[in-house]
């Protein structure tokens, strides 16, 4: 669908690495070029027309984000450089002040490094304990397993909504409901979900939610930190400086601005944020339900075809997202990726930043296909044909 909107697809490539980053539609690129060409001033600072327009466009994106994830207040939307920065801001600016030695955070073995390493760092610094919710046979998180993993010391559950290797959609509403009954905060890493399934932070009742623009047709270098207003109020800024202060005279007299500006120190990624707004409008136009349905169809088609190839080991046979991880029997994943690259097919090989997952799954590295709405059945056919001939892979992978 909508392939004509993506300049990258004018090239002869098949792009199957959408979990890493998605392609950008022309409207997003044009919007950023327009900013740089026609009103490239700073935000929040100027007293002249074009600067006013920057403010308007920048804040317009905040509105769009708010509606996109159905947040209650504009102040709950903070722009960051990405999902990773947002996660670090919450762990260090909120939980570091709140958690005490011995307190527990629950994650899983299939989390992305960005939802693991900040916690490890805090564990080392503050003596909190990082524990893992056990994954079931499909590497899923179930509410039952969450219940089993919780102890009186559990203070936070920090999970990806959709994981980037297994692609499972976690039953977050149920988990959050249960967590809140036990006074446990929930932090949701929505990097892989926002551009693929609908997000409703009020319906989820999630405490914090983070994501990156570049995985949903937006530019790189922009992300969002959503937090419930009363919680966000207490997040301590990691970055101090211009833009976020109200006034200062000396060490004792520093006054910070209100949310969300307080958490957006320095000149922000103005072009990126403005371009991001265009990406949201674009996705809204297509409709997330349409995207999700189409992705599901594509995935089923892909899985059925891959299952017919005897020399493939599929890691996540069942999952509701467009992510499929697998290996060609006896061939290192990177070699297969090189081979596919010769036919201009872009797939990812490796551990996909989920390094602690390997012990659970039993394989360290895999190939990953991640689909988006501009992928086609024909592209899948081309991939499947190339994978079905193992001798050809062995012959041509070098």
């Amino acid at each position, binding site marked *: 669908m909508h392939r004509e909107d993506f300049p990258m697809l004018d090239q002869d490539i098949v792009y199957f690495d959408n979990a890493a980053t998605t392609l950008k539609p022309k409207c997003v690129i044009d919007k950023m070029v327009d900013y740089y060409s026609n009103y490239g001033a700073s935000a929040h600072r100027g007293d002249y027309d074009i600067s006013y327009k920057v403010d308007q466009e920048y804040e317009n994106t905040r509105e769009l984000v708010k509606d996109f994830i159905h947040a209650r207040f504009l102040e709950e939307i903070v722009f960051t450089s990405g999902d990773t920065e947002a996660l670090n801001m919450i762990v260090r600016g909120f939980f570091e002040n709140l958690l005490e030695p011995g307190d527990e955070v629950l994650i899983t073995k299939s989390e992305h490094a960005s939802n693991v390493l900040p916690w490890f760092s805090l564990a080392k610094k503050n003596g909190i304990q990082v524990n893992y919710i056990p994954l079931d046979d499909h590497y899923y998180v179930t509410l039952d397993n969450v219940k089993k993993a919780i102890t009186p010391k559990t203070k936070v559950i920090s999970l990806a909504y959709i994981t980037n290797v297994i692609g499972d959609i976690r039953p977050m509403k149920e988990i959050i409901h249960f967590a809140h009954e036990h006074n446990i905060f929930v932090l949701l890493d929505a990097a892989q979900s926002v551009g693929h399934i609908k997000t409703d932070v009020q319906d989820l009742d999630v405490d914090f939610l983070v994501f990156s623009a570049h995985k949903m047709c937006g530019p790189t270098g922009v992300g969002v930190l959503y937090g419930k207003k009363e919680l966000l109020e207490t997040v301590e800024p990691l970055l101090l400086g211009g833009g976020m202060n109200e006034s200062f005279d000396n060490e004792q007299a520093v006054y910070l601005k209100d949310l969300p500006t307080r958490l957006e120190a320095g000149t922000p990624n103005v072009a990126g944020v403005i371009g991001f707004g265009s990406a949201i409008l674009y996705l809204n136009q297509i409709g997330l339900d349409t995207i999700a349905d189409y992705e599901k169809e594509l995935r089923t088609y892909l899985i059925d075809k891959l299952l017919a190839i005897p020399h493939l080991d599929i890691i996540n046979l069942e999952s509701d997202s467009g992510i499929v991880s697998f290996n060609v029997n*006896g*061939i*290192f*994943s*990177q*070699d297969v990726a*090189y081979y596919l690259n010769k036919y201009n097919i872009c797939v990812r*090989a*490796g*551990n996909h930043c989920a390094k602690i997952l390997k012990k659970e799954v039993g394989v*360290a*590295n895999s190939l990953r296909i991640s689909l988006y709405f501009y992928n086609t059945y024909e592209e899948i056919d081309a991939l499947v044909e190339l994978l079905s001939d193992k001798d050809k892979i*062995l*012959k041509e*992978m*070098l």
Partner: protein
Amino acid sequence: MDENVRREIILDHYQNPKNKESITDERYLKANTNNESCIDNIDLYVLIENDVIQDIKFQGEACAISTSSTSIMITNLIGKTLVEAREYIAHFEAMVNELAYDEAILKEGIVYSTIYKQNNRKTCALLPYKGMLKLLKQYDTLKK
């Protein structure tokens, strides 16, 4: 070198690598070697006595080029004196970097003589050598 022969040698060393076993013998020096930009990850174990390489083993997961290159390097280095080993490594590196080298010294190692054409695979072929140089340095330090 004929392309088919080249491919066969590389594939053979990839699918049936020589000296791929783990070692617990304390006398072996150990080093890990990996590529930052990719997922190759190899452990090398080396036994050096009287400045002669008595044995080398390796373990790990890596691509066809890295694995075969490790297997071939080990085959060629076992039995060499440290001086000979360094000479071999220098010739191999020269070949990969398109400089003058001696085919006779490199033996099967010359299957990578055209690897410079694939810039992203040069580091794969060089991976075990990076580890080997680390180990030789380790040995020198221990001897002092």
